[in-house]
């Protein structure tokens, strides 16, 4: 089984991805992570305006069979959350890198993005 791991994103060992996008950092979970979880049925995110540290727990994702914590890849203030996932959590399964995104952050320190795993490094971890 091979998983989609786009080169433009940075990854955490805990399977979240982050990417720079129009001055913010967008965050979600990897294709591997959604496949491991199976059918996603519930997500819980922080409020807009909340400040997160890198690797801080920012929410919870639940599939039918599992509950998993989510960890922020970088530090920053939450500027948006993907409210579509409240009624359609299955978007995380269907489109983990696009429609299934989770947070947007105003990054406190953009160099933290460089500390994340590259696509190749992350691929080594999951394969």
């Amino acid at each position, binding site marked *: *089984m091979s998983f989609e791991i786009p080169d433009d994103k940075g990854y955490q060992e805990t399977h979240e991805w982050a990417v720079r996008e129009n001055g913010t950092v967008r965050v979600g979970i990897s294709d591997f992570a959604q496949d491991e979880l*199976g*059918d996603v*049925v*519930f997500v*819980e995110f922080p409020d807009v305006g909340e400040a997160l540290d890198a690797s801080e727990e920012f929410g*919870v994702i*639940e*599939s*039918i*069979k599992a*509950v998993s914590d989510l960890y922020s890849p970088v530090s920053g203030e939450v500027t948006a959350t993907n409210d579509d996932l*409240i009624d359609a959590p*299955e978007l995380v*399964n269907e489109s983990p890198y696009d429609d299934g995104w989770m947070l947007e952050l105003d990054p406190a320190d953009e160099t933290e993005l460089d500390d994340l795993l590259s696509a190749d490094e992350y691929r080594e971890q999951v394969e």
Partner: protein
Amino acid sequence: MTRTPPLSEHHADRGAKVTEFGGWEMPVQFDSINAEHESVRASVGKFDVSHMSQIEVTGPDAATLTDRLVTNPVTDLNADRAGYGAITDSAGTMLDDTITYRLTDDRLLFVPNAGHDEEMAERWRTHRDDWELNAKVENATTDWGMFAVQGPDAADALAAAASTDGNGSGRAASGDERNGRNDRASIRDLPFFAVREATIAGVTCLLARTGYTGEDGFELLCPADEAERVWEVFDCQPCGLGARDTLRIEAGFLLSGQDFDPETEPRTPYEAGIGFAVSLDSDFVGRDALAAVAEDGPAERLTGFELTDRGVPRHGYPITDPEGTEIGTVTSGTMSPSLRTPIGMGYLPAAYAAGEREGDEEIAVTIRGERKRARIEALPFIDT
């Protein structure tokens, strides 16, 4: 040492994800729990349930012995019928639940849950010796593969499977032509909770109109070394234990070891809502204790609820009354794939049991320290 079903490699090749359950490594999901669940509600799906135990009891006292250990007597059953009952200790606490197939007058096969096989075989042998009965008790769990074919189209799937010899030809196997037992009509007409021999894919199987999904369906037992041939003849969605769990929760069915367990959740059949499977006219271990419970009614009952706040109720989460006082614990819960709502069950004081307070009783489930509102719902959650 984890046990594996006869088809474990076959399932792995099909991409199944596995989980450990009752000491067995079983497929939890083949494709998606939601998709598998939906197949069973809308058409038909097949499950490998070879982790279930099979104990054969034979001999002149086979039925007498079993009647004294199960809450629902099998001597009331005609040969070729199955019955559902609980196995209780002398206090009336459920040790397990089981379906017993009465194959002939002196040959029974009962199906305890995964990992209970040696314990139950030993329980039968010990009591046989104490009561000086004449019966042979054999743990046949590894001899059999067990599959469930479930859903509104299950009868079509069985009729089609019975008409093939497993080699891709549509003709009936020659043995069937001799005894005529396999005609499609008779499989379709197999009554609920009836059991018979049937030739499926050219393999002699035990076929029963039973299941644990809330849908029409069949369970079949086949020799372990013929399991692949029988499994493969069913051209429908393979389903794992994940969908089996969501389906049985929607149907309000109990999971042994979770909704009741002699160690962690000791409950009587009345508390667990299966009083219908207790015959107090029968003389079984636990009968007197249960007669006393029946007289007064159980103090707590397994009660269904639906979360009205967002969240997913899961095993072990506390249930509170509107004031926040803990009144019970979730024994089973999930996001219902059919209803698209979070549902669960737990033992609550009898005053909360569905009925007069159904629908309007606000209780709450504590999820990660937060109280999520819920309301009482009658079981089952879906029409079965």
